[in-house]
């Protein structure tokens, strides 16, 4: 590997996970952690960035405990955080179906689903806490789906063999988030949480090696202020928008995490991205985002493409024997229900060969004709009506009469800021929760487990582990005039001044789109040594051009959406480069990371456990990033090759 791209540093020393039997570790950690006396909590300030599942649950719980919390989000209301968009459901090892589920099985499935690139201790804790999450949410009034007997309904999800997914129609994320949001608003009324909406964190303040605050911009007035505290929690979500087109909300960004990374926090496994197989394909250059169609559609829909290349016929005119049901053909055991990474890649393969349908040949059919024949239109409508309606609104095509067209799209980022077992980054006082951290999903996230992780982190894990850190507080007061605080502010001011002063001629979006294309082409579903090297070059060139030609209109002291975007895209450039470097250095295939050079004879992902059974934690370096390896130990689940044939 060319030394220009990165350097290797010391391995990560300690993840702080307690030793001993895995099922006792979390209990042990909770007991060994120091507590903060209730009277002292009032003297401790905690900043929480983000009001998604991970942020709102943490802020509300810390507020209830009596800490003084300042909570931030860039949307106009905490309720609009991107978690609201999750559709499918949330896992929990309740075993309400008596179908053999248990904490251990959820733990096992999640480690395996992550293709053996996650930490056993963390995943086990997640599985343990999962049951408490459901209890908590029900107590808050979350209207989960129920059966006629009045008990909670479950469904199986993402190829799991047990029914452990709790759901609320197709709006699970919304209902869970509203539960957390309402708990948060209760604390706002009680005065324990000071909530700042339409505020964006632009810099982390590190004083004497500890995270002590953030610099924020009021997105309405443009005012820049500094908020100082005893600890900072980042719950700022994922960075899938580096691809420009993704299923994420338009505002999702990496800025909070990236600013912390630049201040010394490690960024782990940045290249692990999840590409979801069932999204509505792009229809043209105007496209601003891609829409997910719930994975549940694959339960009844059959995926196919025409056997002949560039077939422009109406799907109804293509006879059965000229159709290729390629998932059923290649994976007879799982058929249309293979996991996300496998279904996505298979779609890419047939489209690359020229069998794709729809604009640009980037789409495959998801056909309900058989299901309608078998179950009747009514039954199909009852099950998927709202999804069909959504599809029709977006594409103008009626999926009852014509098969849906779907294509994979970027959906979730498993990578994120590195944290230890306590959810603390390597900067003391900086904690990271939810999609923003890297911790629990390894190289591939199973369906319905991101919601679980966000709430687990926010309601149960962080409030317990952060007290151990805060027990040393309150830390010595930091003055606004402190050199490090001033420096952080200055960086923000200078960046804004640069954007507004730059006499460019290209819009921010045009750069973002171009960056996204590079990322998708070379760091998307399939990655090669050659492609990644090329991408790094392209990104560097584009970044140079960005700083030369980007044009931002308006002023700093007003609501200026272009200015917001410019800062986010600037950070995406640096992140994109790191993602490519990470993908380049990991010459194995695992989960969502598919290196063309590392595949089995049948074209499946091939892991290289001897050389890559580690977390890649990257340290920011001016010239080149520094790689710190955290090796992964598997005591309970022995790594095997995943097979879905």
């Amino acid at each position, binding site marked *: 590997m060319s030394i220009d791209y990165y350097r290797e540093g010391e391995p990560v020393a300690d993840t702080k996970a307690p030793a001993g039997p895995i099922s006792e570790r979390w209990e042990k950690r909770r007991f060994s952690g120091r507590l903060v006396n209730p009277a002292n909590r009032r003297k401790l300030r905690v900043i929480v960035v983000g009001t998604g599942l991970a942020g709102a649950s943490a802020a509300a719980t810390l507020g209830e405990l009596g800490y003084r919390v*300042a909570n931030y989000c860039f949307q106009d209301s905490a309720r609009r955080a991107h978690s609201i968009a999750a559709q499918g459901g949330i896992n929990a090892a309740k075993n309400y179906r008596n179908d053999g589920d248990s904490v251990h099985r959820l733990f096992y499935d999640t480690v395996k689903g992550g293709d053996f690139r996650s930490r056993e201790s963390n995943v086990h804790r997640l599985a343990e806490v999962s049951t408490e999450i459901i209890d908590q949410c029900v107590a808050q009034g979350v209207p989960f789906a129920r059966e006629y007997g009045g008990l909670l309904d479950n469904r199986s999800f993402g190829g799991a063999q047990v029914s452990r997914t709790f759901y609320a129609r197709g709006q699970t994320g919304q209902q869970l988030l509203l539960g957390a949001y309402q708990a948060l608003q209760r604390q*706002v*009324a009680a*005065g*324990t949480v*000071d909530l700042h909406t339409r505020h964006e964190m632009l810099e982390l303040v590190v004083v004497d090696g500890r995270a002590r605050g953030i610099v924020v911009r009021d997105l309405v007035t443009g005012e820049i*202020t*500094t*908020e100082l505290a005893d600890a900072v929690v980042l719950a700022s979500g994922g960075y899938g928008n580096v691809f420009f087109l993704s299923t994420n909300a338009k505002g999702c960004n990496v800025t909070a995490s990236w600013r912390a990374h630049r201040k010394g926090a490690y960024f782990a496994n940045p290249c692990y991205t999840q590409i979801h197989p069932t999204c509505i394909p792009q229809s043209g250059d105007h496209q601003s985002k891609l829409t997910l169609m719930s994975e549940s559609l694959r339960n009844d829909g059959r995926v196919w493409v025409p056997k002949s290349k560039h077939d422009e016929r109406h799907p109804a005119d293509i006879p059965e024997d000229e159709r290729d049901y390629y998932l059923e053909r290649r994976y007879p055991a799982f058929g249309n229900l293979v996991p996300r990474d496998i279904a996505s890649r298979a779609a890419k393969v047939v489209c690359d060969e020229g069998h794709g349908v729809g604009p640009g040949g980037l789409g495959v059919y998801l056909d309900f004709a058989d299901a309608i024949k078998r179950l009747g239109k009514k039954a199909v409508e009852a099950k998927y009506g709202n999804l069909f309606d959504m599809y029709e609104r977006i594409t103008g095509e009626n999926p009852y009469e014509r098969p849906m067209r779907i294509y994979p799209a970027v959906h979730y980022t498993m990578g994120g800021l590195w944290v230890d077992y306590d959810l603390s980054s390597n900067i003391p006082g900086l904690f990271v929760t939810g999609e923003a951290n890297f911790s629990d999903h390894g190289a591939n996230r199973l369906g319905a487990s991101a919601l679980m992780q966000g709430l687990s982190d926010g309601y149960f894990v962080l409030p317990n582990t952060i007290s151990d850190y805060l027990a040393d507080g309150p830390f010595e007061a930091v003055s606004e005039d402190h050199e490090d605080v001033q420096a952080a502010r200055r960086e923000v001011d200078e960046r804004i001044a640069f954007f507004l002063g730059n006499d460019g001629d290209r819009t921010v979006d045009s750069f973002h789109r171009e960056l996204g294309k590079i990322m998708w082409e070379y760091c998307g579903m399939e990655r090669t040594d050659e492609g990644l090297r090329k991408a790094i070059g392209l990104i560097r060139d584009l970044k140079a051009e960005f700083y030369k030609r980007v044009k931002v209109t308006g002023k700093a002291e007003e609501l200026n959406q272009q200015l917001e975007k410019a800062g986010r895209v600037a950070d995406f450039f640096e992140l994109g480069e790191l993602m490519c470097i990470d993908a380049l250095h990991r010459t194995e295939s695992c989960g969502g990371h598919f290196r063309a050079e590392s595949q089995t004879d049948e074209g499946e992902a091939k892991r290289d456990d001897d050389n890559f059974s580690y977390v890649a934690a990257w340290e920011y370096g001016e010239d080149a990033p520094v790689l710190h390896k955290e090796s992964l130990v598997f005591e309970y689940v022995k790594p095997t090759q995943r097979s879905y044939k």
Partner: protein
Amino acid sequence: MSTDLQPRTAATAAKRAQAARKPWRSNIGLKIAMAVSGVLMVLFIIVHMAGNLHIFEGREEMNAYAAGLRSFGEPLLPHESLLWVLRIGLIASIAVHIWTGIVLSARAHHARPVKYAHRHKNRGESRNAYLNMRFGGIVIFLFVIWHLLDLTWRTVNPVKDVHDAYGAVVAAFDPSRWPVTVFYLLALTALGIHLRHGIWSAVQTIAGPDTKWRKRTQAIALAVAVIIVAGFAIVPLSVTFGLVS
């Protein structure tokens, strides 16, 4: 520290708690008062309408009915007791109805100070109710004043004999006074529209039915409104067209 952690919300929370202790001054509280007064007036008006139909039984019957109202309960109760109970109830209802109407309309006006540049046809269940009710209500109010001058106080009615209600009615709608009849019909239309919305609206405000019952209430409101308008209108029409004289 620039953003101080003084809970910004504590002060407003206290203020709000205070407001919550006076629920009847809230929009919904006033609306309930309006609905109750409206329903009382509806009851009065139904009785009134039924009473008016005595006119088709002839002068004697009609006047006996009117006298009966006045002498109800005599000699145990003083003269016109029932009528005064009704009147006081009615005056109170009108007062409450108008007062709440003014306060709520003013608040609504502040809540929606700017109009849309592009006006679009309404598509709700009671289109334009807010306008019909407010302006219709004013028409009804003007009508009642005329009506009292005409048939109760007889200020503008040729028949001054209080005991001859029949005569007064016949005189009021004499074919020569056709504009009066037209005015009555217009006012009745306003009343009908007012009640078509008002009756279901009052049920919605007081009882809060589910969707099924809301739809039923809307149908009932329409039926009652039509019956009331028809029941009233038939009297002036019959007189004007000479069916009753």
